[in-house]
């Protein structure tokens, strides 16, 4: 199994926050932009892959205890979201590709 930093390196994701944070294991990804849907569905070793970039994304990651958030299509977190990520030790990564391509890449990397 990979941890978040190994996954980020292997997939070429860059960091908005948390490069220095302890990396938790990642076993998969959960792709969804409807945040209420994520709670109770994403597993606690799933990276949340989304285009949403407001503070609620970070709150959902905290609530569902997810190892990281990956923002796709080069979307940047808004200032408030970034502040909340820092305060709550949430790793936020950036992928330049769309959600599907990002998930495919994660899938390939995790499958070894």
């Amino acid at each position, binding site marked *: 199994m990979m941890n978040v930093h190994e996954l980020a390196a292997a997939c070429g994701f860059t960091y908005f926050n948390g490069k220095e944070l302890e990396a938790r294991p990642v076993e998969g990804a959960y792709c969804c932009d409807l*945040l*209420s849907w994520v709670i109770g569905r994403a597993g606690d070793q799933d990276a949340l892959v989304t285009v949403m970039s407001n503070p*609620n994304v970070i*709150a959902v990651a*905290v609530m569902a205890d997810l190892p990281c958030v990956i923002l796709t299509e080069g979307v940047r977190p808004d200032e408030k979201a970034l502040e*909340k990520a820092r305060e709550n030790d949430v790793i936020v990564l950036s992928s330049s590709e769309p959600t599907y391509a990002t998930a495919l890449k994660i899938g390939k990397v995790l499958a070894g």
Partner: protein
Amino acid sequence: MKELSLNILDITYNSIKAGADRIEIGISESTTGNLIEIEIRDNGCGMDDEFLRRVTDPFVTTRTTRKVGLGIPLFKQSAEDAGGTFTITSKVGEGTAVYASFQLDHLDRAPIGDMGSTLVSLIQANDQIRFIYRHKTDQGTFVLDTDELHAQLGDVPLSEPAVLSWLHAYINENLENIQGGKI
């Protein structure tokens, strides 16, 4: 959330937790005005200015079991994602009013959802609370006041299964008549 009725349920539970014994839920749909408005107003304990300022922040909650609360932030996001606005006003000892508007034809606007089931589940679990529901469309207005139901039913509680199933059909029929919640 997938449906606005789920947001309404969530926000109404805040009112219940705030000790309200009177909760008004209003929905207004205007095709001509391209607007949906939702308001939930209660006479619960209310919030002070300091808490009110922070309440749309998902990292604020009255719960002690976890450090995030998403009911209000997600409702605000639903409105803003659909070109609408969100406001919340409150006064300690008087109550709280939550208002959200939505651009009716916005692609990211969630459907209203099943208000019949939402109301029945609220009434079923909270027989002691007076719920006043107003649903207005271009076709007309439907008003449901649980005090009036109590007056008609006498000693029979609203939580009685036969009453609930009648109530569910009654709400759906009346919403159907004004084409409420179809959009």
